[in-house]
């Protein structure tokens, strides 16, 4: 597992702010919290069956980050025969943090960013657990 990275795949959700929350949480993890242990892939590229994207999700542990219960990311990783090891749904995290009211798709409001931070910390912790288990 030394050369492997965890692939964090947000859902691309563009209709509501929760898709952006998942996307921002992903960037917090792959760019700031765990840049050496994680990366992402374009979900649309995976959906279209790109060879490199398929290889990436089949050879590395994947975490799906979905904005809504449609779970497009999880379903597309599974349909691609990817190594799905964990998935989160932003609406479920929001249910546990009811005081937060995320808004905005172009740019998240502060509460949306706070929710993304909570999710990112959770993803970061999960990434450590997964890599520890696979050592």
């Amino acid at each position, binding site marked *: 597992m030394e050369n492997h990275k965890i692939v964090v*795949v*947000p*859902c*691309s*959700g*563009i*209709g509501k702010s929760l*898709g952006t929350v998942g*996307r*921002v949480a*992903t*960037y*917090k993890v792959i*760019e700031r919290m765990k840049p050496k242990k994680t*990366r*992402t*892939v*374009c*979900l*649309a*590229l995976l*959906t*279209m069956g*790109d060879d490199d994207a398929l290889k990436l999700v089949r050879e590395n542990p994947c975490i799906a980050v979905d904005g809504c219960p*449609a*779970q*497009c*990311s999880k*379903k*597309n990783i599974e*349909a691609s025969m990817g190594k799905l090891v964990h998935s989160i749904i932003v609406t479920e995290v929001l249910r546990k943090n009811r005081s937060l009211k995320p808004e905005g*798709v*172009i*740019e998240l409001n502060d509460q949306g960013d706070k929710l993304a931070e909570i999710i990112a910390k959770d993803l970061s912790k999960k990434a450590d657990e997964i890599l520890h288990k696979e050592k």
Partner: protein
Amino acid sequence: MTLATGKVGIICCSGEDLPEGTISRVATRLVLEKLRPDQTVTLCLPLFLAGGEDERAFARVFPTISVDGCSKKCAEAATEKFSGKPVATILVSEVMKKYPHLKAKSRERLKPQEMKLATKVAEEIAKKVDEILCKTPKK
């Protein structure tokens, strides 16, 4: 998804791995929220695969514009494969060639220069929307 006529569907790639994917996403939202709010609708691209018949019918109900970040053109290809051929296509990397001073580097939060680029892309999308609606007979 609400089915309606007289509107244009915009499908962007939202490519998570590239700054151009974020530009495609923000440009699309700028059109939906600010430039042509009453004439446009969108759909999450992966819903074409994960979704049901309503989602798959999207491009059969609406004339569509695909907005892609890179030359892999996932939005264009996915729309055509799962729903119907887009009426118009926009490629962010092509638009960028017209504005070499505007660079795309951020994936998470766009900086002012990148927001200018997203606005330029949004303006090109809006122009295509107008062209399509002028050509489409009103139902």
